[in-house]
């Protein structure tokens, strides 16, 4: 993540990275506080030193294989899935495993 941020920061010749906007799927077992702590540790002395991580949690979205209807589902309910439209249980995951850098705030 830091490599991606620094690569773009250098390319745009920024002075400082103030914030990093991330998109992370809710299925990822990540904790905001720890990601920030590891990021702080790794980014020390770089252009991104002190940058704040802003996380947008992407919902787990499933698509029914029977009727193509797509719907959000909470992680706790993932093991009892049923399509709200046609009640089929055969669904595939469209999002929820996301892990990307969306944008950075720089000065």
């Amino acid at each position, binding site marked *: 993540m830091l490599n991606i941020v620094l690569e773009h920061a250098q390319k745009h010749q920024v002075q400082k990275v103030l914030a990093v906007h991330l998109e992370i799927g809710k299925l*990822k077992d990540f904790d905001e506080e720890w990601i920030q702590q590891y990021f702080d540790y790794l980014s020390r002395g770089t252009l991104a030193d002190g940058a704040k991580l802003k996380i947008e949690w992407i919902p787990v979205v499933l698509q029914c294989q029977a009727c193509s209807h797509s719907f959000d589902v909470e992680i706790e309910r993932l093991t009892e899935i049923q399509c709200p439209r046609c009640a089929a249980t055969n669904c595939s*995951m469209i999002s929820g495993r996301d892990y990307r850098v969306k944008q950075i705030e720089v000065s």
Partner: protein
Amino acid sequence: MEEIRLIEIKEEILADNDAVAKRTRERLKRERTFLLNLMSSPGAGKTSLIIETIRELKDEFRMGVIEADIESMVDSRKVASQGVRAVQIRTGGLCHLDASMVQKGLDAIETGALDLVILENVGNLVCPAEFDTGAIKNVMILSVPEGDDKPLKYPLMFSVCDVVVVNKIDYIDRSDFDRQAFGERVLSLNSGVKIIDASCKTREGIPAWAEWLRQEIRQFTNG
């Protein structure tokens, strides 16, 4: 006041790993070597299942095993004693394998002369699910003593595998493991998954497991 700008990036953080994994699959296709990624908690029976698989398939396929157990040579010795080529990757305490480490393991084991390579991932149900190793198929072992609630706690792992082997099935009568509820939970997370009940101790289910793998390898090497 300093001007704050926004720079759009939209870049996948694991893109580097995914690119290496894709190259690995292309190479395996060229060399006609089937790579199986085996994941589980510590103690669920990865090494035992590998040894049983070797017993079932060593006369049909040229096999190798890549071991990634943390700082231990015990597992690769056990495997090597079966007369199969084994390579140990030292992860230096890391909790998972990534595609680059696997690539080095494949170089070391010389995949050109092998039909099947089994990758014994680090014992962990979290991180190995995050990293594509480049394997052709992903399999996880869940042993009965771990409990039927594991799909609720580690949904990502159950959603990325092609087969779940329920090991230590001989123990089920002495446990409160609800096999039906477990099956429903797993299928709900991953409707395409195959579940095989097995016991490396009594060998129940081992022929069925070996048959699945045999068909997959044949399909892959002929395709």
